[in-house]
């Protein structure tokens, strides 16, 4: 067994992260199990090793879990706090509980799967470049400002738990100018960002969603992918690639969105919601 167990009780965050890095880089350990996490920040930060697994077995990891991470897989068997996957470059994160605010801020690639709810500003400023397309799947519900200023990537909210909160909070996709959001709902989120419109999913959307949800259900076994995929989803995409271009440059010298910019059929939604 090429694995190591670290008891994080009373360990300062720098000590813990040093131990993880030593184990992975010097000893070639492939599986790091952490017990009794006590809010140590930056667990998994900057690790580049693709086949490494970091498992947080008990306790609660601190803020900025998997920040700048570039390859490994992190699993948390409990709740996580704020800032998970901050500017993450690659790899996977699975959280078997809730997560806090500002998850996957500025994320560049990789995947984050959260079984429970997430807080506010999740997916803020996610970006993409060529084949680097980050994604986040939230099993529960999301707070306000989901996908705020999103510039790329895929955000999925499934709302599988039964509390009476709305599936996404207010001001979803405000300032969004790239990427796509899929929400398992038939209702229009309140105070939706002015920069996005709602569309129905096309075949390529359905394929993307299917592969993400299958991966989600592989980890969180109480959910069945085919059941989830039966539900109706809405898709949010920005209608302008550069909504603020005109604010900062004089003249009107870049193309405005064309009428047939999106070939998708619009869901018939009453005008008053916009």
């Amino acid at each position, binding site marked *: 067994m090429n694995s190591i167990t670290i008891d994080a009780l009373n360990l300062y965050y720098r000590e813990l992260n040093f131990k993880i890095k030593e184990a992975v880089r010097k000893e070639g350990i492939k599986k790091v199990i952490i017990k009794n996490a006590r809010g140590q920040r930056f667990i998994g930060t900057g690790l580049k090793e693709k086949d490494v697994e970091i498992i947080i077995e008990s306790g*609660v990891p601190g803020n900025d879990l998997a920040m700048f991470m570039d390859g490994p897989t992190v699993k948390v068997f409990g709740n996580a*706090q704020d800032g998970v996957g901050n500017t993450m470059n690659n790899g996977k994160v699975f959280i078997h509980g*809730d997560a806090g605010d500002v998850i996957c801020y500025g994320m560049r690639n990789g995947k984050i799967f959260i079984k429970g709810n997430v807080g506010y500003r999740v997916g803020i400023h996610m970006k993409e470049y060529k084949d680097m397309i980050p994604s986040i799947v939230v099993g529960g519900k999301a707070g*306000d*400002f989901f996908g705020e200023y999103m510039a790329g990537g895929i955000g999925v909210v499934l709302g599988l738990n039964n509390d009476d909160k709305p599936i996404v909070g207010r001001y979803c996709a405000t300032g969004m100018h790239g990427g796509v959001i899929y929400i398992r709902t038939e209702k229009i989120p309140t105070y939706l960002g002015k920069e996005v419109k709602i569309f129905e999913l096309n075949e390529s959307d359905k394929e993307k969603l299917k592969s993400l949800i299958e991966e989600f259900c592989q980890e969180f076994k109480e959910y069945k992918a085919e059941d989830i995929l039966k539900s109706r989803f809405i898709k949010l995409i920005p209608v302008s690639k550069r909504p603020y271009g005109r604010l900062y440059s004089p003249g009107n010298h870049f193309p405005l969105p064309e009428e047939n910019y999106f070939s998708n059929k619009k869901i018939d939604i009453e005008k008053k919601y916009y």
Partner: protein
Amino acid sequence: MYEHNKAKEETELFLNNYFRVIKAEEIPTKQIPEIKSSPLHYRYFIEIVDNKKTGSLSLLTEEDYVVNRVVYINKNIEGAFVVSSGKNFGAFKGVGFPEDISKFFMLENYKAYAWTAHNRFPTNTPGWWGGAHPFTLLDFSIVHNGELSSYGINKRYVEMFGYECTMLTDTEVVAYLVDLLVRKHGLPFKTVCDIFSPPTWDVIQNMEDIKLKEYYKTLRIVYGSALLNGPFAFIIGFNGGLIGLSDRIKLRPLVVVESGNTVYLSSEESSVLEVCDKIDRVYHPEAGEPVFIFYNDYKGE
């Protein structure tokens, strides 16, 4: 809290002039190497005497009388600051790591139904003994994570009612606002939280419940100067329990953890694990959603 002996002499003269001091003693502290220098800490148990010397108490409530004296000491006696002025209530604050401050004040010797603890990393205002949290007035205390962009407006507002901001930190204004709104204006805590952290105008505009809409509109118009803007999550302590509140767009975290009969409020869930073995329930309040933790025998609201 005295910065020098002269402040103590002056304050004691003042106290003897306006109160009957039943007991005066130095607050027990332990000298430890981690705390290199500290001001003087004294506590006084006092009684208000209604006679000519103290002025016409009949026009003031006992609480007003105390508040006026507290404001006077903080403002006019150089080097003297009132850290705590409540009943069955105490505040310990200082410059140092929290564990060292707790050793310094020998907190192991105190017992209470509710505790708030705070570790401040001063960024915008000076770090000094009086600038540490909590900020208190009478039986209200506040610990705060964040900053108040509305400090100027709030400060001017409370100054109109005779309060003075003397601690050089934005948070103290909330203690005075709570005292003003709860004690003097008689508002319930729920309303006070709605004043501090109200819905935005566009949300109010679209409210279907007309009564609720009018309620929030009224609060924002009448108490606009008491609205707290900027990132914050804070815990108010009072003689009936604790109240947690975050700003209306949740720029600071707040989590509620239940364990048996005990409730914890914290910025991070992990910090609760340090002091609690068995977590029954974790709850993440929404932005601006107040969390009320009342003692079982609390009669209010």
